[in-house]
């Protein structure tokens, strides 16, 4: 045997047992696996990471074959399994986020519903209160009308509720000063007007006997006197006004000798129109 022969044999043997230490792909797989251990996949998909670890072990064992293709193929599987595990981890996080948002959505809806119901209750309470106030006002109006009906003629006409008082009940013949009994009746009228809270006008019907010119002048004074008295009783200036008999004819009244002799005073309460406050009275045509 030549002197160099043993050395060649040792070298050949060593060459045959070349042990693969690493490949780039395997390094990449190791790093990916380590990174995944610190991410959401560790908690959300541990089983998938376990599978990836088994493949990593297989890839490590593949180094013993000395075939880098075997190692790289197995390392590729590791990387893909890790990526899938990470995707599943993110999926779990997203699902949790979705569930949390849906819970918040449900809670917000419930809160809005509760608030709406609370608001509705308040509105209903306010409406009931308003209705009670309105009912009370209507009751007062009906009551004052009932009182007034005993002393005056009240008619519901298209132009409004007309309260007609004979001139003799309010004034001395030919005069414009109110009689004590007339003041009492006008006080009742004032109560009625205040309950109604609607615009009203005073029209004095002149006596049909005697001078027309004198009768008209007297009627104007009487209308003003009545208006002033009603204002003094609490009817607002804005609510009541006078209307000269020469400009607008008085509403028709029953043909009475008393009216003819001493005239009359008509207080016309305008009809109740939708959207305006006040009592719900005055249906035209109602007796």
């Amino acid at each position: 045997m030549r002197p160099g022969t043993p050395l060649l044999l040792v070298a050949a043997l060593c060459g045959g047992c070349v042990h693969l230490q690493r490949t780039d792909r395997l390094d990449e797989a190791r790093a990916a696996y380590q990174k995944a251990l610190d991410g959401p996949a560790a908690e959300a998909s541990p089983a998938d990471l376990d599978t990836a670890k088994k493949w990593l072990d297989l890839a490590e064992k593949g180094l013993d074959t000395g075939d880098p293709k075997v190692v790289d193929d197995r390392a590729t599987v590791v990387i893909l399994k890790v990526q899938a595990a990470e995707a599943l981890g993110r999926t779990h996080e997203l699902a949790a986020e979705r569930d949390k948002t849906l819970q918040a959505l449900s809670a917000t809806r419930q809160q809005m519903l509760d608030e709406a119901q609370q608001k509705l209750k308040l509105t209903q309470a306010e409406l009931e209160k308003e209705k009670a106030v309105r009912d009370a006002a209507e009751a007062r109006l009906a009551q004052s009308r009932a009182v007034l009906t005993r002393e005056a003629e009240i008619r519901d006409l298209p132009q409004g509720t007309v309260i007609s008082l004979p001139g003799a009940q309010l004034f001395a013949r030919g005069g414009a000063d109110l009689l004590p009994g007339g003041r009492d009746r006008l006080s009742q009228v004032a109560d009625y007007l205040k309950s109604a809270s609607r615009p009203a006008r005073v029209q004095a019907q002149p006596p049909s006997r005697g001078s027309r010119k004198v009768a008209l002048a007297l009627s104007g004074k009487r209308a003003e006197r009545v208006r002033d008295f009603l204002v003094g009783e609490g009817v607002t200036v804005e609510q009541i006004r006078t209307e000269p008999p020469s400009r607008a004819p008085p509403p028709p009244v029953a043909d009475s000798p008393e009216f003819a002799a001493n005239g009359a005073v008509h207080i016309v309460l305008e009809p109740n129109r939708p959207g305006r406050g006040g009592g719900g009275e005055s249906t035209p045509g109602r007796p």
Partner: protein
Amino acid sequence: MRRWTAGALVAFGCACAGAPPLPAERLAQAEAEVRAAQEIGAERAPQAKLHLQQARDTIASAKEINKEDPEAAARKLEIARAQAELANALTREQLARSEAEQAHTRLDALHKDGVADDGAAR
């Protein structure tokens, strides 16, 4: 004569063992994963679609190289399966992301408009 025949059969069997067919179970698993990814809509998620196509290509490649290198072909089937699994996982992630975004949109709409129902975003 019978001994000769038996020997010939053994030799034939050995020859066939040198070029085995693709491992049926691995092929079936890889193809099943591809189908599963398709069924949940991997084609509509760009990243998932990419990996799904890679899985298909890898299966085709495994079939091609099986004759020359059956072990490499078997490894490719494992890679194909993992690629399809990744496509599947990415598709699910995309669906979950979409659902989470929709939930946020609905909540934002509710806060913004104060509407009782946000059916349009549902």
